[in-house]
């Protein structure tokens, strides 16, 4: 039974989605129960998977679909590969999905109406796609799973109000360009190597010494462009702020922590496992410099644009763009600490963003105001929500013992180790800007007056205001906030263990 853990935790949400679809319209309560059960089973299985991978001590679990064994040295079918890195992120994905389902209990009838069962089916299929991306070892299978996650997210975002449909269309165009570039890159690799398995491609490139051939370099550029478009690296970020702000709130809280981070994981996989550290770091060292500078621009631009925003959710999405800059820069730093720091940042950023987005959604729905003046005097009215938001904000600034401090610490050490001082300066600068943003909010919330002045609401902002405010915040919305704030602290306290696991796994592939 434990041999089949990787595929079982993928099948559970798939079956859940099929059952939810059969419920028909209006049956949101039953669909919610089915969704909770299937995602709960999936989370428990992913905990077992993590324990099993830890017990192997530095190996990875290989699972071959269809049982075609590679006795002749090459893979004929599709295989899954789960190592400690994959197991950690699968755990994060399934847990965030489960907790988000708790949050969505009251929001689905309010925001999506009678199409609730379809919403739950789409979210579960999105989780299936994300888990599949993390565990697969086949380049073309990765493309199909990227498209599964993309299609479900297009539909989930478009279920919102009228601006949501327009932002979803822009996301469709940009996302298709990104995925097609990835497909072209895989195609070029196939033309040169003749196989699709990630390990086999690497072995073939090693044996034939194709590292300087023009087509392999072009394939690398194409795959990178595709993945960067999907993770919203500046300047390919145009679709992200509108898509995540106008989506229904329970969609935004699920997609904001996870989608871009899983794409960062894909980038690290392709860089280190498919192409290898020798090719990426020492080949054309002008690239490493160029991409670190690009990430510096992303961090600075994201922070500035977040500072300029008056709208809560838009501000948070620009902070996500800055965080993506941290991770891309950290991965390209050519130092083990930097890579491990970038990886640890995937986990910590997921927790932080989840916490902040849930808190922001609760505030917007409760006060009916989507701009920053919703926070006036909020501590007296909604103390619990404000505490959750504070923990998330402190983690974004980078104060101990939250996980944000430790991830910044590792990234800065990596930057110093490899001599990229511009990256260190950008990180410190972004912490400063985050401090300005969040302390302004804290000042309003803790020391400001309760909002009494009605400001003019502009036409474009009307779409951000929810249709009906709620009188009091139900427990199903506060529990996820607590759990996510708690996880921010736990990830910070446990950082030594996590970091040692991650760097052990990366040490092996870095050679």
């Amino acid at each position, binding site marked *: 039974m434990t041999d*089949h853990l990787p*595929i079982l935790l993928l*099948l559970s949400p*798939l*079956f859940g989605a*099929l*059952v939810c*679809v*059969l419920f*028909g*319209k209006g049956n949101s309560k039953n669909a919610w129960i089915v969704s909770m059960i299937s995602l709960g089973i999936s989370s428990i299985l992913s905990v077992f998977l993590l324990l099993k991978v830890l017990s192997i001590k530095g190996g990875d679990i290989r*699972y*071959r*679909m*269809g*049982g*075609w064994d590679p006795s*002749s*040295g*090459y*893979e*004929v*079918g*599709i295989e899954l590969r789960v190592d400690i890195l994959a197991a950690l992120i699968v755990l994060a994905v399934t847990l965030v999905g489960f907790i988000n389902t708790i949050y969505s209990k009251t929001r689905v009838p309010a925001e999506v109406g*009678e*199409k609730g069962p*379809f919403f739950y*089916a*789409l979210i579960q*299929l999105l989780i299936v796609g994300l888990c*599949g991306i993390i565990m697969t070892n*086949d380049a073309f*299978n990765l493309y*199909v*799973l990227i*498209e*599964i996650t993309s*299609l*479900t997210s*297009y*539909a*989930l975002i*478009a279920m919102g109000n009228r601006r949501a*449909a327009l932002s979803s269309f822009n996301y469709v165009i940009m996302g298709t360009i990104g995925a097609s570039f990835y497909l*072209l890159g895989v195609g070029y690799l*196939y*033309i040169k*190597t*003749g*196989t*699709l398995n990630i390990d086999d491609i690497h072995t*073939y490139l090693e044996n034939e010494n194709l590292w300087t*051939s*023009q*087509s392999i*370099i*072009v*394939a690398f*550029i*194409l795959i990178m462009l595709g993945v960067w478009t999907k993770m919203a690296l500046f300047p390919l970020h145009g679709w992200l702020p509108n898509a995540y702000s106008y989506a229904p709130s329970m969609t935004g809280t699920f997609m904001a922590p996870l989608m871009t981070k899983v794409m960062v994981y894909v980038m690290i996989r392709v860089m280190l496992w498919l192409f290898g550290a020798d090719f990426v770091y020492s080949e054309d060292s002008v690239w490493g410099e160029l991409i670190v500078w690009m990430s510096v621009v992303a961090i600075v631009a994201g922070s500035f644009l977040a500072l300029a925003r008056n709208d809560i959710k838009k501000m948070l999405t620009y902070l996500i763009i800055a965080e993506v800059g941290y991770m891309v820069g950290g991965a390209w730093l050519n130092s083990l600490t930097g890579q491990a720091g970038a990886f640890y940042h995937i986990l910590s950023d997921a927790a932080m963003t989840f916490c902040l987005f849930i808190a922001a959604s609760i505030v917007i729905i409760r006060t009916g105001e989507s701009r920053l003046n919703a926070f006036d005097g909020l501590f007296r009215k909604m103390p619990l929500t404000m505490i959750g938001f504070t923990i998330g904000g402190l983690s974004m600034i980078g104060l101990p013992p939250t996980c944000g401090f430790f991830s910044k610490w590792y990234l800065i050490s990596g930057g110093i180790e490899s001599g990229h001082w511009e990256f260190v300066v950008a990180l410190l600068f972004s912490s400063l800007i985050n401090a300005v943003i969040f302390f302004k909010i804290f000042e309003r919330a803790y020391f400001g007056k309760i909002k009494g002045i009605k400001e003019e609401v502009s036409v474009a902002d009307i779409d951000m205001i929810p249709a009906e405010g709620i009188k009091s915040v139900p427990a199903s919305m506060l529990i996820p906030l607590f759990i996510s704030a708690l996880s921010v602290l736990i990830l910070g306290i446990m950082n030594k263990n996590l970091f040692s696991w991650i760097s052990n796994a990366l040490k092996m592939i870095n050679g």
Partner: protein
Amino acid sequence: MKFFGLLSVIIVGFLLLSATKDFPNWGDEDSPANSGPVSSFYIEKTEEKTKVPNMVTAVLADYRGYDTMFETVVIFIAGIGIIAVLRTYGNNESIPKNQVGDEGAGLLARMTCSLILPFIQLFALYVVAHGHHSPGGGFQGGVMLGASYILLALAYGLARAKSCFSEKRTLVFAALGIFIYVGWGVLCLVMGSEFLNYSALDSILPGGVEMARSHSMLAVEIGVALTVTAIMFSMFSNLSTKGRLDKGL
């Protein structure tokens, strides 16, 4: 904007074409892709290991069956997504049956359609079933079967097609198709082997291990055909009525 678009398109085009100088020529038999071990395995060993002459179906449904499962999920997501985005539940259920919808096309089209439709469906089922020996398979047959229902809707009006294939029934068929595919893989799991390892079903299905693979491929293709049929018709009916499902084209 147009200049910027043209510039980026030219840059990307040059990037893509610069790689072609070390690509294999058109029709080259010794290229890594055509003479590599993986493709050679597929061509040489498929018939003896699976007894299916059509290599494309064998690779699709057996060697890379995991991929095909997700491909079916993709088309399922498209159908569900269109319903989730567009569907509006007005009060069109209260319109009496003989007043809803249109009359479809003219008399000639209706007569032709009623003569041809059974043959189209029969041919579609043949394509699904004969996918092992000739070009065909689940997707191809499923699209034809779905198109036959669309032809019914175009000729006789959407209300008539909906009476054969209502929304509830399309959802049931779509879920049933994927359920068959995934369920077949779980059956292999239950028999003790990996997911989608058809050789584990040797004890239940007649014939040897190779015939077990061949029969399983057929079962899996039937599941795919069911889903594709239902989703094709559902996509058509939602897109042509803008989610209201009242009047057809």
